[in-house]
């Protein structure tokens, strides 16, 4: 009987890998066995020699995802089960070695073989980063456009006035309207429920009005957020990315240099309470250029 090792990981780019999993990540580990209908046992240890059996099913350890066999005393026992999906615990220690073992008994000879693969939980804890993905022409896909893409606009003109007519049933009914900019917040090194604490400021302390904030996760859709310059987006575990649409009131004649800040202490892995550990990728800026002022209208 020959036992070969293979494993497959999640296909998300730049994220968890089978031998460097993130907290909460799921990966499939497969050993190739040339004989069939053999009893197998799966377990995880901390020692490369098979010592240090890891307790099964804790948030700080791991669990099997819909195994065919049964888990007793921290060992999964099955037949012909040469591939398992492991979900690493939401609070599994980072930067730690583990060994995933499969033992197989030859059902005719009774001989046993076993093999392990080493994994090392990712060293870095939760990190959230932000990118301005506003495109005035509306041609880019905000979910996938890379930071620095030439189509992205770090400065845009305001959108058209909402009510251009100045005397429509009343006095001074003109409404300059509003403009919407969009940021993409991504998480790394965690697959747990996460919070995005944000604060929108203006570089020169000019007053501005946030009319609306709309947040949407890449897997779960709209997330309710208060319409305010500071707040928290409660992102779901299934969402790796969240688009945050920020709508601000237009102010003719005024340049707005807006900063969308991720507030480190409020941007967290909700399960582990780990705070965003990298503050260097927490700021995205956008300038709303001034639309010209039209005033002093007279007719003689």
């Amino acid at each position, binding site marked *: 009987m020959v036992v070969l090792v293979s494993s497959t990981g999640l296909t998300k780019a730049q994220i968890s890998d089978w031998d460097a999993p993130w907290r909460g990540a799921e990966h499939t580990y497969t050993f190739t066995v040339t004989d069939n209908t053999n009893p197998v046992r799966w377990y995880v240890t901390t020692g490369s020699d098979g010592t240090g059996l890891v307790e099964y099913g804790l948030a700080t350890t791991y669990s099997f995802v819909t195994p065919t066999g049964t888990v007793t005393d921290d060992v999964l026992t099955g037949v012909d089960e040469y591939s398992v999906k492991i979900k690493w615990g939401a609070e599994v220690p980072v930067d730690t070695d583990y060994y995933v073992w499969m033992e197989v008994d030859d059902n005719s000879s009774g001989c046993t073989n076993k093999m392990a693969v080493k994994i090392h939980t990712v060293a870095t804890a939760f990190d959230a980063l932000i990118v301005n993905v506003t495109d005035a022409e509306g041609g880019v896909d905000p979910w996938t456009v890379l930071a620095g893409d030439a189509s992205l606009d770090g400065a845009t*003109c*305001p959108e*058209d*006035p909402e009510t*251009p*007519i*100045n*005397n*429509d*049933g*009343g*006095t001074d009914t*003109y409404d*300059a309207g509003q403009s919407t900019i969009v940021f993409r917040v991504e998480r790394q090194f965690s697959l747990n429920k996460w919070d995005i604490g944000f604060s929108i400021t203006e570089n020169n302390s000019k007053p501005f009005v946030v009319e609306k904030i709309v947040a949407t996760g890449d897997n779960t859709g709209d997330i309710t957020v208060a319409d305010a310059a500071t707040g928290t987006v409660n992102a779901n575990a299934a969402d790796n990315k969240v688009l945050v649409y920020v709508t601000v009131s237009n102010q*003719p*004649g005024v340049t707005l240099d807006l900063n969308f800040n991720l507030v480190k202490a409020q941007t967290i892995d909700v399960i582990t309470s780990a705070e965003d550990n990298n503050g260097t990728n927490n700021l995205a800026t956008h300038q709303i*250029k*001034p*639309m*010209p*002022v*039209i*005033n*002093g*209208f*007279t*007719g*003689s």
Partner: protein
Amino acid sequence: MTFVIIILSLASASGQGAYTVVLNSNIKYEVAANADVKTYVWKIYTDKDLSIEANTSTECELSIVSGEPNAIKVKWLGDGEYYLTLYATGLNDCTNKKAWKYTVVSTPTIIFNEIASFDCADDEYKFAIDIVAELKAGIALADTQYPLTVDYQVTIGGTTTNHTTDVAYDDQLLNIEGVTEDIGNDKIYSIEIIGATTKLGGEINLGTNITHTRTIYALPPVSTINHN
């Protein structure tokens, strides 16, 4: 006859709802010149969505004001509702637009307040007649439309002379020329308004009482008395 007078401020930036303009008025509109603007474009639409441009032959005529791109002259040619719209493009290529709603009316009228007056012949030939100019029944023409220019005819004994004079808002009086007085003979003049326009060239229609009869009575004859 009593009138209910409501004063409207027309063609100015303080109205509530649409501004009212008298048909055929020729008005210069402008906004404060903005050094951050590279182009101004003026248009007039007939719909609230600012998509259907007015007909420049039948509805309104726009004329540029040389050296003043922030201004436009509009001659209003047809009754109706219009949206005078300004598009401004900044040096940074950002744009803004603003529109003002106008209602063009051809309802103004002018009449004499009295159809007849009398005087005794003397050396003072000048006199004036009250006029009443309304935007529509019960609503006086606003001060911004004055002075009015009134054309009138003076007729006596088959001879007619034509005259033009301005009427000021403050007194609403049509000062009459072309009348002379004779202490020895009665004179009866017929004075008729034949046309009137606002300060802005807007058309004022002739109402019902546009003829006034001015009777100037001769003085009773007095001759010398002989005394001895």
